[in-house]
């Protein structure tokens, strides 16, 4: 199990000569980024080819890369008066529905699948970015691994990624009649609506959310080197 990563990386690069794959090998696994046009073809080969045999797809999820790497509190550029104070960014949880940011970002949405090969006892993460132009659409893996049906429904529900060829693309986790895709980074953490009992109408009604956005700990980024150093130590030893 432990030393399969190098071999798998090599096999991927050798096997898919006509597809532009980005293979990233790290200490925790292999991540393979596939162009959206080749998503189905690569997945099918990974399942069927004898050297791969990824017969299980454990998980499919969406990722929204909006605000990736944006800190809310500056930790560099220290002046004689100290660090920057106050939080002014609109990070997750710090904005309401009306204040949400609406700017475009290339390669914003990705679909990530975790594959597992029972015969070879190996794992592989495959990833593809949804196209920037036109529909936010990625081919569905449901014909290759039937078990991804609900996982893709979930990614559609939470991120609004449309899976082409999915037989039953309905919302799954959110309420009936929900508006918006809640796991997008521009969807407020407090939500948009809440439910309450209306005494006059004698039923439960939707109303605008009444709580204020609040986050206690700002998001900070520190690229300190200690982990990198300890990793280098391990590699050389």
């Amino acid at each position, binding site marked *: 199990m432990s030393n399969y990563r190098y071999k798998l990386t090599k096999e991927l690069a050798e096997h898919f000569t006509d597809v532009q794959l980005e293979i990233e090998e*790290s200490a925790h696994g292999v991540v393979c980024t596939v162009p959206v046009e080749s998503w189905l073809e690569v997945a099918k080969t990974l399942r069927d080819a004898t050297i791969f045999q990824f017969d299980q797809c454990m998980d499919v999820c969406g990722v929204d890369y909006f605000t990736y790497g944006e800190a809310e509190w500056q930790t560099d550029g220290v002046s004689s008066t100290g660090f920057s104070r106050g939080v002014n960014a609109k990070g997750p949880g710090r904005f309401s529905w009306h204040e949400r940011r609406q700017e475009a970002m290339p390669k914003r949405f990705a679909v990530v699948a975790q594959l597992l090969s029972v015969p070879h006892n190996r794992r592989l*993460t495959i990833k593809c970015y949804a196209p920037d132009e036109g529909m936010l659409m990625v081919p569905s893996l449901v014909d290759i691994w*039937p*078990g991804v049906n*609900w996982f893709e429904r979930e990614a559609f529900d939470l991120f609004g990624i449309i899976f082409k060829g999915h037989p039953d693309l309905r919302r*799954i*986790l*959110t309420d009936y009649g929900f508006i918006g895709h809640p796991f997008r980074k521009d969807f407020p953490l407090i939500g948009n609506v809440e439910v309450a009992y209306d005494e006059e109408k004698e039923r439960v009604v939707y109303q605008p959310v009444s709580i204020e956005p609040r986050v206690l700990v*700002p998001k900070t980024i520190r690229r300190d080197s200690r982990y990198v150093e300890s990793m280098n130590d391990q590699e050389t030893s």
Partner: protein
Amino acid sequence: MSEIKNYTMNFGPQHPAAHGVLRLILELDGEVVEHADPHVGLLHRGTEKLAESKPYNQSIGYMDRLDYVSMMCNEHAYVRGIEQLLNIEAPIRAQYIRTMFDEITRIRNHLMWIGTHGLDLGAMALFLYAFREREHCMDMYEAVSGARMHATYYRPGGVYRDLPERMPQYAESKWTKGKNLAYVNEWREGSLLDFIEAFANDFTSKIDEYRTLLQDNRIWKQRTVGIGVVSPEQAKAWGFSGPMLRGSGVAWDLRKKQTYAAYDKVDFDIPVGVNGDCYDRYLVRMEEMVQSTRIIKQCVEWLKHNPGPVMVDEFKVAPPSREMMKEDMESMIHHFKLFTEGYTVPAGEVYAAVEAPKGEFGVYLISDDSNKPFRMKLRAPGFAHLSAMNDMVKGHMLADVVAVIGTMDIVFGEIDR
């Protein structure tokens, strides 16, 4: 003869056999299920999104509340993900403690499962027996973490604290006194490890009691044999894991195949089913409890003879002790930074999975060098199992739907997240 038409029936979300808040839309032809459409999400709390707005350590408590009958296994997957990104490893004693508590958790989960599954299928007495033993496991949780269920005991880099030297005892009260008091405190004279050992020595005979009630019980077999049959190919294609996969005859267990914690240092077997029906999955889970008892005994033996640290000696991740904090400026700063800002995790992504009682519980983490996870995805085993509901119940009778829900060991905390 009058014409019989298909009709649609709503099952749940308040039905006691729905194991929480499952809403099933069943299309029936007489009593035969033609189509089942599970509606989930009634317990959706957005755990992943909440975790993305908090420093890493503050989300450990949320993990307990996912699969709320196998708490520590969920924590284990999460802290392993963080540990891999941070490139740290928990000390060996902490690994053994985690192994032991994972197995206690497995017993807890399976006791809950056998109790409710039995109750659903008409074996009322079993529930009382199962919950009698489950109470002991609750006490172990309480002794080590202070909480009976939601422990928040595992931390990145180890566990929160070492096992207590003294097992808490019952005090004398109006209801518990004299002989009764001596009886309930019988196992509680020594340390927590003594208590766990006494429990483990006793528990195998308790499993035999459950088996007496069920194994050859005619009604139990009528309700489970040949119901919800899953072939190994189907099980793999549907993304099954854990007992659902092993019940179909696939010898796959992450504890053996992709070993973690101290599972490579203990001796245990993996039970595998043959027919892939509800009865085989029952047999697999019963045998898993026996194997868990074996693992627990070995861990207790090791832990009794090998004292040592239970947390990494790295103040960037694990807080210094209170005494150090009050004497040493550096420790004070570390303590302050850890509890206000948390630690930052190097950029990267990781998928860490553990063999939770229900199957593969995975955590997919993406970090962007910050103190909060950029994206967290929890892979719940029950989600994949429930998605195959329609294929498993098609053609079965309405009463078998309950058997299939029970055999999946569904808990909505993890499915809805």
